[in-house]
């Protein structure tokens, strides 16, 4: 028997569709706000794939199907709580007020894709796998040392759990009782590597036992299930009880990124089946059954999101290209003097 509980939701139940019962603690406004966030993320992702095909953004990491994990988590947090995204959650800052143009610029390789994490409590996009887990542990721990009641959520993939940085961050967070939720997007693939080649553990949530922290395993396509799991992790953290591991089980039924050709390795039938379990459609059906959402609402929310993206890409494209000066900016508060000489020489040679 393990000393800490692994709470496992009945995944089958959720896959089969939620009964039209109102969840405790979420009124109609909260349910609709969650829907709006899902749609904003969905539209951001859909448009980004199109923008990529039009050559308007660079290589892009698609997150279609993972919106429920992202929106579910953000809505379980307070604004003072921090989010540590990986590249897969690149647009999660939208839900904290970052303009779409900022995130689009990141994928356009433009330096105005930089944002100030402190303004939105969203850390920078982390590209190297799992290396942000210790950052989130440190931030959460550091806030607790200052007697803040804010918490942090780090989001990472199933593959990330194989990295040393994940292990070290999780262990450290548990030892220091850092107020952290470790949210694993288990989409069952790391590029072409399936989960069974990633771990011999039956469930990723079982790893939590070794760190002495509780785990909750939920259907990552069910936004309410993710919301509930993260909320419980957050409450546990705020109560000073330390970190929780949340495993959100989903499936990557789209390419890893725009540069990836999954036809070499995927199981087409499984992909088709998984696409039929779409998290946005499932939630819309649920809200309709509850009588909270109708076709018109869906249309309105979608159009707002499309307008947000149209304005975002326009703003991004209207921006002047970055000046060479930015190559040398920001690495140091107090730059060594040779950087200024380098810039001068670069301008002389390129007459800029």
């Amino acid at each position: 028997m393990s000393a800490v509980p692994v709470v496992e939701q009945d995944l089958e139940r959720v896959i089969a569709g939620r009964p039209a019962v109102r969840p405790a603690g979420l009124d109609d406004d909260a349910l609709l706000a969650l829907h709006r966030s899902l749609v904003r993320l969905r539209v951001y992702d859909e448009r980004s794939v199109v923008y990529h095909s039009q050559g308007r953004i660079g290589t892009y990491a698609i997150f279609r199907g993972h919106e429920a994990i992202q929106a579910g988590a953000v809505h379980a947090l307070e604004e003072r709580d921090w989010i540590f995204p990986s590249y897969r959650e690149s647009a999660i800052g939208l839900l904290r007020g970052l303009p779409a143009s900022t995130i689009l610029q990141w994928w356009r390789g433009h330096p105005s894709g930089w944002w100030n994490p402190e303004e939105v409590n969203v850390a920078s996009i982390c590209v190297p796998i799992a290396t942000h887990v210790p950052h989130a542990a440190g931030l959460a721990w550091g806030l607790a040392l200052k007697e803040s009641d804010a918490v942090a959520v780090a989001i990472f993939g199933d593959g990330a759990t194989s990295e040393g940085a994940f292990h070290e961050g999780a262990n450290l967070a548990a030892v220091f009782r850092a107020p952290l939720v470790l949210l694993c997007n288990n989409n069952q693939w790391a590029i072409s590597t399936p989960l069974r080649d990633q771990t011999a553990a039956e469930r990723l949530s079982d790893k939590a036992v070794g760190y002495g922290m509780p785990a909750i395993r939920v259907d990552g396509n069910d936004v309410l299930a993710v919301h509930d799991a993260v909320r419980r992790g957050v409450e546990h953290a705020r109560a000073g009880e330390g970190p929780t591991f949340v495993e959100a089980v989903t499936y990557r039924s789209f390419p890893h990124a725009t540069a990836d050709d999954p036809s070499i390795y995927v199981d087409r039938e499984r992909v088709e089946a998984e696409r039929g379990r779409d998290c946005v459609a499932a939630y819309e059906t649920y809200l309709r059954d509850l009588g909270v959402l109708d076709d018109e609402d869906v249309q309105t929310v979608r159009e707002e999101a499309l307008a947000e993206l149209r304005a975002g890409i326009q703003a991004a494209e209207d921006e002047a290209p970055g000046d060479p000066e930015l190559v040398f900016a920001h690495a140091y508060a107090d730059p060594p003097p040779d950087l200024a000489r380098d810039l001068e020489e670069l301008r002389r040679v390129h007459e800029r």
Partner: protein
Amino acid sequence: MSATAVATRELMLVEAVNDALHVELARDPSVIVLGEDVGRLGGVFRATAGLREAFGEKRCIDTPLSEAGFLGAAVGLCMAGWRPVVEMQYDAFSYPCLDQLITHVGRYRWRTGGRMGFPLVIRMPYGGGVRAPELHDDSPETYYVHTPGVKVAVPATPADAKGLLAAAIRDPDPVVLFEPKLVYRTARGAVPEGEHVVELGKARRAREGSDLTLVAWGAMVAVCERAADDLAAEASVEVLDLRSLKPLDDEALLASVRRTGRCVVVQEAPRTCGFASEISALLAEHAILDLQGPVLRVTGYDVPYPYWQLEDWYMPSVERVVDAVRRVLAF
């Protein structure tokens, strides 16, 4: 010129890497390939394509996502008698493996008093100019070449990619091969069929000249060749492709610079303590009286590799190389 004509095939650089792996796995049953996505997918750049089909799952292995783990495992695989060829998916994603590299890969032979060998290879695509998101553009050769016990090679042509990789696999010591991803599919050339080995530690004169030597490796060799073209009316510029940073062909380097009397070193990596500094120091130590001007370095800058809309400002350009050459010539 060899007396017997060697059959060649026109290949892209990444195809030449793949060819070398096929040939070496067929030649030596103790050679195995491991890394992230090298098996089912055949590598994100297709460098390991077809290996799993040809040699089976046990010789082309998809590892968990754990660079320190699988490089450390490669040390153990060597102890068990294998010759692992480890792929790091990208330059900057090799950083987690540096712990194993520095504390073990480069030291284990030494630690056994030379009794045990660690014939492992680390290969990785490296370098910028590919319009990729953050940390897909680094040139980390310095970290590796600075590590005692480790050899480092960097091909610039398809034939050298094949030959240096084969040499690395056959070498008794750990060798790191940096593959210039910028020219993975644009550098094309004749590649000898079958077994082809390019000895480590031999530079290649990519272009002959008498007024100045441009020294480079990897993707910067082509930049130097273009600069030499642009300067053709003004000066006769030699281009020396080092091919191997450790062991370094200091004889070829010194012979060339003694002859031309001038040298500019071009590297993509940040300047401070980059390998260009090493070349510069060697010339100061051994060729000071042959030099007719300062040895200049054209390098990336001492800042994180920029977001890609700015990367052309960061990468050494033909213009910057030409400018440096003119400054040395005018000295």
